[in-house]
């Protein structure tokens, strides 16, 4: 009497795993073919699996609540009646697993090798033998045939087909002009680059320095904060007028970013919760509301993104803010930002407008509850009092930590920033 093992099947066209929800049998139970044995939950459905065997349940090989990979044994049954000695159902995981695509010679129909589906790949002998066979070339069979007829090596052709496949035209082009075998992007005729082989591996560079800090910060943020982003377009003609006026009056390098920084400080006064930090402590989570605004400014430096801060930005007037920002951007450009400059920011502005984009979903710097992205200023059609006007418009994108800030608070903050940019100097309503 031998035990038969039931492996978890793929019950839904390409599923890879399922959870064992409830066993309907226990060791020692006598079961018949098609008796329900277990409920499983896949990504698609909860389904009941019937037994393919008759016999006595020998063991349940996985516990309820466990996630099991398709193909893993879940039940053994002592042999009785309808026997399927040590066979594996052929369709387990038939839709997904790469390693199931295996080479199988023509005419090989012995039962022992049929446990995996007969998806035949061309045997190794059919592959190019010059070491470049690692790359799989997509092409329809008649196109491959054409390549053979014309003596073109299909693995060296840059595909132009809609699915990244090599087309008939590609083959003809390669046959008449071997130079075009290599990928060529320029729209004007020029000299093609033959210096690189298509099988040359890409370059790997260790992640260090600024990039490592940035990556660590982004991962830390993404794995803790619950980030939510909201957007708002604002007509910034008021800001542009104010910038011109202030430059005239002060002689300082006032920019739209200066106004945005003032706007953030103003808006924090009304919604102080966005200027806060989440702490997980042994006693439980705590939210720290910061007394002052340490305003982080994301700046692209020569070695990557840095986020120096303007200390106590809430104490600065427009002149102070303009000076601080100018100082900070100069320092960043000259690569003189120190770690101390970057520590302790409580809320951040990132001016993505300098990259000529409108909006985005900025990632929260660790320890901060909100980050505001200011987009480029661009003329747009803008409805005013039922009429259509062309106005300079900026998009604001705010990401906030929903553990700290709720949707209404986030929206109020963003609207206040927008109102300030629309009409700088007018107290918030």
């Amino acid at each position: 009497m031998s035990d038969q093992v039931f492996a978890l099947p793929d019950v839904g066209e390409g599923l890879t795993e399922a959870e064992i929800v409830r066993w309907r049998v226990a060791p020692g139970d006598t079961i018949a073919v098609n008796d329900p044995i277990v409920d499983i939950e896949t990504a698609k459905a909860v389904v009941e699996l019937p037994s393919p065997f008759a016999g006595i349940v020998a063991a349940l090989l996985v516990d309820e609540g466990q996630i099991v990979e398709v193909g893993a044994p879940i039940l053994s049954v002592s042999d009785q009646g309808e026997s399927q000695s040590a066979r594996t159902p052929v369709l387990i995981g038939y839709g997904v697993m790469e390693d199931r695509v295996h080479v199988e010679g023509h005419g090989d129909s012995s039962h022992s090798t049929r446990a995996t589906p007969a998806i035949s790949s061309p045997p190794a002998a059919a592959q190019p033998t010059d070491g470049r066979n690692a790359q799989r070339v997509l092409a329809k069979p008649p196109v491959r045939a054409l390549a053979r007829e014309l003596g073109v090596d299909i693995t060296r052709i840059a595909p132009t087909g809609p699915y990244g496949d090599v087309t008939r035209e590609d083959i003809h082009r390669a046959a008449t002009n071997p130079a075009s075998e290599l990928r060529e992007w320029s729209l004007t005729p020029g000299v093609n680059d033959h210096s690189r082989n298509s099988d040359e591996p890409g370059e790997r560079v260790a992640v260090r320095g600024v990039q490592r800090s940035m990556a660590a910060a982004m991962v830390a943020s993404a794995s803790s904060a619950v980030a939510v982003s909201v957007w708002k377009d604002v007509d910034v003609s008021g800001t542009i007028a104010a910038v011109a006026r202030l430059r005239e009056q002060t002689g300082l390098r006032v920019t739209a970013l200066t106004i945005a920084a003032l706007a953030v400080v103003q808006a924090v006064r009304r919604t102080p919760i966005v200027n806060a930090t989440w702490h997980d402590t042994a006693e439980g989570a705590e939210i720290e509301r910061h007394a002052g605004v340490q305003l982080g400014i994301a700046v692209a430096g020569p070695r990557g993104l840095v986020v120096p801060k303007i200390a106590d930005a809430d104490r600065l007037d427009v002149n102070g803010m303009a000076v601080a920002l100018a100082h900070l951007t100069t320092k960043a450009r000259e690569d003189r930002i120190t770690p101390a400059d970057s520590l302790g920011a409580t809320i951040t502005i990132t001016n993505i407008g300098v990259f000529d984009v409108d909006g985005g979903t900025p990632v929260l710097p660790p320890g901060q509850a909100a980050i505001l992205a200011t987009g480029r200023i661009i003329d747009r059609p803008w409805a005013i009092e039922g009429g259509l006007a062309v106005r300079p418009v900026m998009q604001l994108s705010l990401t906030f930590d929903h553990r700290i800030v709720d949707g209404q608070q986030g929206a109020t903050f963003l609207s206040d920033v927008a109102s300030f940019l629309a009409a700088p100097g007018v107290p918030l309503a």
Partner: protein
Amino acid sequence: MTQGSHMRDSLGGFLPGDEPIRLLAPDGTATDHPLVPQPVDPIDDADLLRAMYRDMVLARRVDTEATALQRTGELGLWSSCLGQEAAQIGSAHAMRATDFAFPTYRESAVAWARGVDPVGLLGLYRGTTHGGWDPVEHGFGLFTIVLGSQVLHAVGYAMGIQRDGSDDAVIAYYGDGAGSEGDVHEAMVFATVEAAPVVFFCQNNGWAISEPIERQTRVPFAQRAAGYGMPAVRIDGNDVLASLAVTRWALERVRTGSGPVFIEAITYRMGAHTTSDDPTRYRPAGELEHWAGLDPIDRMERYLRSTGAADDAWFAELEAQADALGERIRAHVRGAQDPDPIEMFDHVYAEPHADVQRDRTRWESMISGGAA
């Protein structure tokens, strides 16, 4: 005692908004309909009644075995016809051997009635065949996965046999969901204009995967027929006698050159759309239970018992036949050999073709390890 001229004339003017025609009530009593006489006399022709019941039971066994085989990893997929056996078996029994049916992927009960071996049919769902049977031998087309396209095939075939001067007829099976496909519209346009000998047999099973019929139509499907200019009849699709009687009438009508007929069989898909679907996510509570009370097999069993057409011994014998069928299906499906890949070249063209022969030679050479 089948349909007379009275039925032929009056059914043609049947209003599709009317109550579906029902000849066998859920409690197993035969009910009269003013336009449709009972198609089978329970005393004189009990063989046919038993044959239809047997076919429904065995078709359901094929269905439940297939579902179990899929759940144990032996089939890639299964599309169950559970609950639709009466619509399928009744209409299939109305066909002559030389008639031709074009199915979707859910007509496994029709396949059974047309003599298709379920083992061959399940090969399609195991991936060991692209077809599974000879359509000409059985007068039954291959399962068609692409929604609605078989309706075009059916009309094309019907127009063909019409030109051959044959008096055979065609049934195009499709479902409520496929009725939203453009192919079905095109097929109906051609069929009515050409007076093709085809019966459009729509099994309205309530659900197009997860879309209820309210999301497919504002009027009963049968009302669409008037727009094309063909008569339409709604039947209780869980009533095998109504399905038989009305399909017989329809087939006779289309044979005479009177043009196509539309039948809407109102039934219910008691299983999932396919084994990859979870109907509990969209079905309203109680719906399945309601339809379980209208089960097509239960009502026929009551009828056979009450009329004395079959007794306990006969039912027990049928149960044993079903068990044996289940066992045979399991053994053959599990033991199915993968086909020789070269077979794919056998069914490209009816006649030998030089290009196919050349490809075949190259393929043979490639898979035997020769140069590509």
